[in-house]
């Protein structure tokens, strides 16, 4: 009996997630009124809670661990309070972003509960704490206007934090990028990502003259080099791309972007020639099966999982995702693809894409140049990280060892991503309330941009 339930649930979950994903994009249709949009967002919540319930019923049925039901109940309360709180505290918040954040967290909780209940608990605890923090962020953005003034402070803090890890972290963890204080393991690069974006935005918003660009580039390069030295290739790549994107948008000079890409490629070739750990990754990417005993082991296990799962998955708790080393972190996507199916995994990519599009959409609607750049930078950070992690585990690109934001296990990653979402929400709320004020003034002039790009909440 339990087998049938598991089997049927597999398809039910795919359908629910597909519906959810469809509405992520359907909501962008121009003809929708605000009321219609709100109905769609409400429906998305229904799909999400149904999927979440079904998944936990399967997990309960498979593990017979009744404690899971309690855990499930607490999660439901958590999600409801997140959704309600945003609604009450920030009337103008983007509901799509809130929904996507909850959906991704829910998928993360489901797969982590399946992989390791203990880690799922931990992850949940961090999510709750992070959400409290995040609720304050939009408020702070509205009130504290001097965040744009602390440009050099960001650079110093960022470089020091990365430097400390490069030196102290290297001793104890090798290529790992964290250090432990009082039992809490921190991965500073996750947070430096955020302040790095603030730094670059501050610099380039002030001026885009050549001298300013050179100075900014030097500081940005310093970040990247420290990360390369501490062997965090994924991190280095994210900082690099984020900087190029921000530089290009701030200066509107494609040459900067292309030149940057070219020099980055040269640097990559040099890195390949000199660093054996780079060669290993490339080798494991080119033909993992030929080096399956060593370098290719992890990626092969990941591809076994994805391949065996096929389009519909083998069902929650039916596969062997724990065969993949660090499956809860960098390879969580493979576990999802194996057990919940390839269609589910494709939907997951699309939900991540929907988040990214929403970030950029908000950036485009903002009027303040500094906020615009910050939103763009954070959006790029998010989008590129998703690309790196999923591309790595499906062998589209060499694996760089980064996490899937909001889904992967890992406190620093979870906390920093929730903060990123909150900052963007803060900007959106700011813009929305400004827009309302303008409407009230009724100057007869059109506000131009908001009509052009279409407002989406």
């Amino acid at each position, binding site marked *: *009996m339990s*087998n*049938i339930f598991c089997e049927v649930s597999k398809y039910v979950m795919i359908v629910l997630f597909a519906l959810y994903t469809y509405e992520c994009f359907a909501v962008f249709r121009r003809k929708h009124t605000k009321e219609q949009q709100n109905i769609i967002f409400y429906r998305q919540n229904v799909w999400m809670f149904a999927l979440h319930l079904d998944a936990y019923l399967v997990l309960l049925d498979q593990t017979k661990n009744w404690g899971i039901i309690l855990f499930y109940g607490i999660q439901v309360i958590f999600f409801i309070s997140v959704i309600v709180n945003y609604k009450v505290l920030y009337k103008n918040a983007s509901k799509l972003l809130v929904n996507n954040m909850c959906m991704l967290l829910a998928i993360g909780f489901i797969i982590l509960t399946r992989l390791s209940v203990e880690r799922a608990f931990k992850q949940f605890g961090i999510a709750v704490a992070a959400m409290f923090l995040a609720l304050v962020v939009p408020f702070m953005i509205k009130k504290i206007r001097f965040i744009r003034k602390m440009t050099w402070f960001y650079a110093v803090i960022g470089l020091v934090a990365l430097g400390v890890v490069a030196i102290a972290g290297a001793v104890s963890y090798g290529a790992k990028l964290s250090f432990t204080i009082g039992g809490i393991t921190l991965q500073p690069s996750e947070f430096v990502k955020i302040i790095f974006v603030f730094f670059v935005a501050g610099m380039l918003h002030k001026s885009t003259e050549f001298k300013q660009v050179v100075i900014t580039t030097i500081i940005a390069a310093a970040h990247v080099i420290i990360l390369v030295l501490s062997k965090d290739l994924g991190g280095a790549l994210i900082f690099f791309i984020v900087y190029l*994107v921000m530089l*290009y*948008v701030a200066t*509107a000079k*494609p040459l900067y972007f292309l030149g940057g890409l070219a020099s980055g490629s040269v640097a990559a070739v040099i890195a390949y020639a000199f660093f054996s750990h780079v060669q290993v990754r490339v080798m494991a990417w080119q033909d993992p*099966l030929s080096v*399956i005993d060593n370098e290719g082991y992890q990626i*092969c296990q990941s*591809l*076994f*999982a*994805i*391949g*065996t799962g*096929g*389009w519909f998955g*083998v069902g929650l708790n039916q*596969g*062997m995702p724990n*065969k993949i080393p660090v499956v809860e972190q960098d390879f969580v996507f493979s576990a999802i693809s194996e057990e919940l199916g*390839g269609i589910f*995994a*494709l939907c997951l*990519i*699309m939900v*991540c*894409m929907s988040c*990214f*599009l929403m970030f*950029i959409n908000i*950036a*485009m609607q903002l*009027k303040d140049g500094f906020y*615009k750049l910050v939103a*763009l930078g954070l959006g*790029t950070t998010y*989008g*590129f990280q998703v*690309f790196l992690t*999923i*591309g790595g585990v*499906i*062998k*589209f690109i060499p694996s760089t060892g980064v996490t899937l934001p909001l889904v992967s296990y890992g406190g620093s990653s979870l906390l920093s991503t929730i903060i990123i979402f909150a900052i963007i929400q803060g900007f959106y709320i700011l813009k929305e309330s400004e827009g309302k004020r303008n409407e009230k003034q009724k100057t007869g002039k059109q506000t*131009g*941009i908001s009509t*052009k*790009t279409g407002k989406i909440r």
Partner: protein
Amino acid sequence: MKNKKPENKQESVQKPEKSVRNREFAVITYCFIGLFLCLMGYFVYFQIEKSEEFINNSYNSRQETFAEQIIRGEIHSADGEILAKTETDSEGNETRVYPYGNMFSHIVGYSTKQYGQSGVESWANFNLLRSNAFFLEKTVDDLTNQKSIGDNVITTLNYDLQSIAYQSLGEYDGAVIVMEPATGKILASVSKPDFNPNTVEANWEAIVADKEGESALLNRATQGLYPPGSTFKIITALAYIQQNPTDYTAYTYSCTGSIQKNESKLNCFSGEVHGNVNLETSFSESCNTSFANIGLNMNLKDFTQTGEALLFNQPLPVSKLEVSKSRFSLDKNASISEIMETSIGQGKTLVTPLHMLMITSAIANDGLLMEPYVIDHTENYEGAAVKTYEPVSYGELMTIEEAQVLQSYMQKVVEEGTGSKLKGMSYQAAGKTGSAEYGTNKGDSHAWFVGYAHRDDKEDIAIAVIVEGAGIGSAHAVPIAKSIFDMYYRY
């Protein structure tokens, strides 16, 4: 139109600075949408095209868990014989049974708990352990806690051809492999010495210890590397034709039974004297001295290239089958004797029977090589097709004109040359014999035959035969090929 343009310009001038700056945002957005689409595209590509290679990998431990819920499916020949099945006794113990014992030992392989799988059992492991039985039935199995019945794998193998090939090879070591040039279907594949898959698990230690040095587990048809002997003259002739496309027919040579250049000397087989020969008669008579002469007059780089175009020194394009890489090279430092030896298929050149078969098939198929395959389709235990494997074309190994010249040469071998035992049958055969010397004893040789046969009412078939240490090809390999052709064209 013309009136509108200036208006547009004015508009863009008047627009606030921000809309200009949003253009960059749009560029970035499209770049990232592109990245995400590539990501999804690759994921889809992986699932459709690449995933099977990974699923079936023997390192994929997920396969084992399926065995707990599924009774391993059967393996059938294309003509309906059961080649492997699982029997369950009253206590629920499962035994894998191979009704034809040693006959299919390498190609169908074995499936054991302790030592894994080989052959079709290994390549189709995943398919055999999946059940596409009717949904309701699986539900009932599930409710009653019974195992479902796995899917069956239908091979391209033909029982009659496998059986006659197995018998004809007799007590000799060696290999016989047969395929359909137009599709790449492997119809028979025999390798000896063999083993009994029914008892392989019990006898494992003895088989692996291999006290007599016979490597019984090795599939000689696909992995055995042999000197090609005179069958290699196909490649030498093709290289000469490619290097002299207009006047290769004008080639003449006067065979005196031996050829000497500097210190190096080479004889025709058993000192025979062929007299005046052209390219065609050199081929059909298998004149060693003439081919040594051809080799000495060729551009060696182009010769090597011809070999590589025929898939020497690279992995063969076959899915599933485990194959060895054939070896052939001649560079400018090659000695005179090395060039002469290599041109007649001795020297350092090594080839697998499957590879010679693929070259022969391409010739029979007007130059186009079809990738060999052995799994035709899978079906659920009631016979409803699940997945069908279509023939895959690899591409042209040579032009149609070149293939047709070689066809006529190979027909001549049967009409007037070393393959005359195949003359005057209901089918039109063509081929090339070989006697590949090995080891240090002069005269010890493997008997080779590669060829194909045609009759209007049936698909052509191609064959490669190697009989280890039997002697000359025309006497020992050709009769085996004949018995298989006779069987295939018996009605």
